């Protein structure tokens, strides 16, 4: 499969961290990714991404004082591509078993070195026919603000829908019941969905 983008390097029941195969080639924040196991696919949402030095103790140093452009920096120091790496965190929001989609946590966490794939438009459409995954996101302990995350997910998903506005309104209504005790958070999310 050519949409392989990374590999799991740390895993728990609620999520995993993957390293991108190519520096800076990260899936979008809020994007849907999957891991394919025999007879099971595990779906997750990109909740955080970043790039840092391979060695935790060694920070990169600034190199571009005399360079003409940012690209020039990388060209003059090709070793940088090997010393840095891009990682992304994924929140697991469901899985498919024998073709049936379940929007709750899978029985087992994903394995280390499992391949992470980005999802095609059709896959996103298929997964977003039900909105129960929003419950997991509302409760998730993400490193980013929940409203940012949920809004990003819905914006990403709406992009591939036949009628993005209808999709956003329907999911918005679903969220309203989910967040019935927290109008402020609801408003914050809705505010980020407006086209």
């Amino acid at each position: 499969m050519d949409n392989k983008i990374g590999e799991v390097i740390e895993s728990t029941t609620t999520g995993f961290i993957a390293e991108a195969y190519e520096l800076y080639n990260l899936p979008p924040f809020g994007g849907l990714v999957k891991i394919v196991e025999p007879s099971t696919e595990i779906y997750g949402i990109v909740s955080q991404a970043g790039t840092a030095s391979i060695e935790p103790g060694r920070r990169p140093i600034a190199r571009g004082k005399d360079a003409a452009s940012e690209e020039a920096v990388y060209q003059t120091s090709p070793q940088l591509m090997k010393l840095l790496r891009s990682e992304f965190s994924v929140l697991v929001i469901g899985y498919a078993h024998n073709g049936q989609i379940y929007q709750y946590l899978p029985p087992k966490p994903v394995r280390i070195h499992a391949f992470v794939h980005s999802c095609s438009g059709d896959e996103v459409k298929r997964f977003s026919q039900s909105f129960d995954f929003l419950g997991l996101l509302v409760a998730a302990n993400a490193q980013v603000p929940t409203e940012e995350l949920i809004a990003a997910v819905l914006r990403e998903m709406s992009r591939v829908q036949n009628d993005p506005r209808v999709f956003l309104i329907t999911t918005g209504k679903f969220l309203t019941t989910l967040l019935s005790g927290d109008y402020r958070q609801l408003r914050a999310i809705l505010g980020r969905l407006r086209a």
Partner: protein
Amino acid sequence: MTDTNQILGIVVSGSVEKGVDIRLDNQSSVEDMVVGRYVTIEGKKRRFFGMITDISLGVTDEAIMEIPPDTADLFTAEVLAGTATYGTLHVLPMLTIGRDVASAVESPQPVKTVPSHFSRVSLASEQDMELVFGKEDTQRFWIGNPLDMETKLCLNLEELVKRSNGIFGKSGTGKTFLTRLLLIGMLQKSKAVNLIFDMHNEYGWEGSSESGGRKVKALKQFFPEKVAVFTLDEENSKRRGVSTDFTVRIGFDEIDPEDIALLRQTLNLTEPATEAVYQLRRRFGKDWMQKTLDLSDSEETKNLLQQMNIHESTFQNLRRGLATIRRLPFIVPHASVDAVKSILEYIDRGINVVLEFGRYRDITAYVLVANMLARRIYNRYQEKMEASMAGNVAPPTPLVITIEEAHKFLNREVANYTIFGTIAREMRKYNVTLLVIDQRPSAIDEEVMSQLGTKITCLLDNEKDVDSVLAGVSGKNELKTVLARLAPKQQAMMFGHAVLMPVSFQVREWGSQQSYKEFARGNVSKQQTEKDIKELFG
């Protein structure tokens, strides 16, 4: 119009006393709902019929009201609609029908419970309405359409005329049209005969419509053989081109002290003056009125008055009052033909009588004549009814007496004296009932109001009037909201004996060629039958 089978929402709370609350679902807009409309609620074991009595807006979170979305933010508003912000219907369940086969054939029953949680609610369909109010048939008369519906609303007139009834509504709301319609209905569908005291000459030959003073046909034009027009003012009737059947004259000797007592307020009589009438009647006998008016200001008179213990000023007060009566042109010293007798003759033959007042529209004439004639007719009915109870004589034809400005006869002070008070209270014992028309129901005695079987009311806006019309009806407070929102013309609400549940409706149209054709139909078919009989049997 909203599709009737569409689910409006579900029951979320309620009580038998206060009615149930229905949460509208996302698809239904509060703006499509109307108070006064009917809904059906599909309970688990029964179906319920109810009327929308209130529509309100709700929010799940108080914060929404504190920080509402920006007016330009249509997206947020749309998301919140139906979820965090929603519409609520308040419905007063009125009837139930069982679900099983055995109870499906039974007629609808009054509600004694509420539908269970989350029962589905939809607008009542045409079939539902027919189930409750029946179809047009030999007894049922189409009087209008339920608000926002095409169904014909039918009223069982045979049932209606068994009790006294009332038509209310403030001036200009269409009481007269409604009454005319109901009278036509009675002519078509019931066996009862009508006696109509027609104060404004609206029911006999033709009436006028308020918009543009257009003339509209009245009873006699549809049923010439079944309606006789009596008049107090022949000249006026002629000028209006009405052919009358009888001119009513009333003799002094026909006026009784009770009639004067009733006129106390209009004639501005004092209490002692009305008392004096009874004494004078005892003293002078039948001709008391003539003789009282003939008394001169002599010593002799003074002595006479002293004997009877009548004070001079009281006497003068009474004389002024009696003189007012004498000035009425249809009052003569002695009437050659007895009006009561001829009215009864017509009624016995099943002919309806409309008594026109011509120019004498003042309340004195109306109260005097109506009360006097009705009292004597009622007495005759009482005799006949008692005779029929004793022997094998057929009971007299049921009689419906129509009176306008009813509060003049039935207010708290006089209801106990007037014959109309008696008729209203004793109801149908003697086969006489009333059709009371009034614009100030609050002025009518409560006891009388409580005895009225079916009440039909157009728009009323005085709090007291509304209270008195709705007194004793279950769900009064809810119905108030509906009543207050009737259109100022041609809409009415009906409740009581002849209808299973209160209903607000658009009154059937009167005045077009098509409507005339339909009103006369009952009559045509009868003529046709007679013609057929003749052809068949010679």
